[in-house]
């Protein structure tokens, strides 16, 4: 199974990614999907923009390793992981996860696993620019570690 793993500044086209994942295939029973968006506030403070930094080279390796781990755990027919970097505005999509399987439970479980691991094992860092002009790096959440440790 080939996983599609990409880091890009441009927006992604979900319909095109779904079409690429399932093109010509009639063995897929379900595709799980997660889209993460930039929210307009954090801790009650209005956000003007989010800037994502990553570790080129290691990021792609980490995403490929996370996809490979999902393939070990579930019978998957396709995985797509796309993460945007650079400056993004509230409402913009940051991350796309797709997982295809013959069966829905595998597709849904793999989707949740992929985003949980991506959040704790791929080298991305977010800086929030607040509407009041301040900016700060986002702090890692214990709840993300707990979510990743479930699997």
């Amino acid at each position, binding site marked *: 199974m080939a996983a599609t793993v990409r880091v890009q500044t441009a927006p992604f086209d979900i319909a095109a990614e779904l079409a690429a994942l399932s093109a010509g295939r009639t063995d897929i029973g379900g595709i799980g999907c997660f889209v993460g968006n930039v929210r307009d506030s954090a801790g009650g403070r209005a956000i003007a923009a989010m800037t994502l930094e990553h570790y080129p080279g290691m990021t792609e*390796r980490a995403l490929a390793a996370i996809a490979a781990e999902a393939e070990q755990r579930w019978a998957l027919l396709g995985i797509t992981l796309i993460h945007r970097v650079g400056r993004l505005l509230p409402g913009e999509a940051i991350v796309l996860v797709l997982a295809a399987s013959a069966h829905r439970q595998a597709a849904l479980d793999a989707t949740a696993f992929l985003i949980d691991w991506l959040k704790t094992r791929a080298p991305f860092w977010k800086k929030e620019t607040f509407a009041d002009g301040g900016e700060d790096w986002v702090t890692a959440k214990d709840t993300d570690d707990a979510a990743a440790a479930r699997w």
Partner: protein
Amino acid sequence: MSETAPPLRLLYFAWLRERVGVSEETLALPEGVATVGDLTAWLRARGPGYAAAFASPVVRCAVNQDFATAEAPVAPGDEVAFFPPVTGG
């Protein structure tokens, strides 16, 4: 350590990069540095920016693009990156 040994490549990300003041540098493996922990201690003594960056207990490391602990060995030619806990997704 031979003087012709390849240098270490050091990378800094997010607020570590901001505190250290550079995103990347190369240097010969310092005398007595054999692990990530040794390297961190050596860097911390290098100046106030480094001291500020490495003062945090949450600093993470990767050696040759794999996550690494303080006990991980460091050798000439390695790419060693320091960064905060990741916050993507």
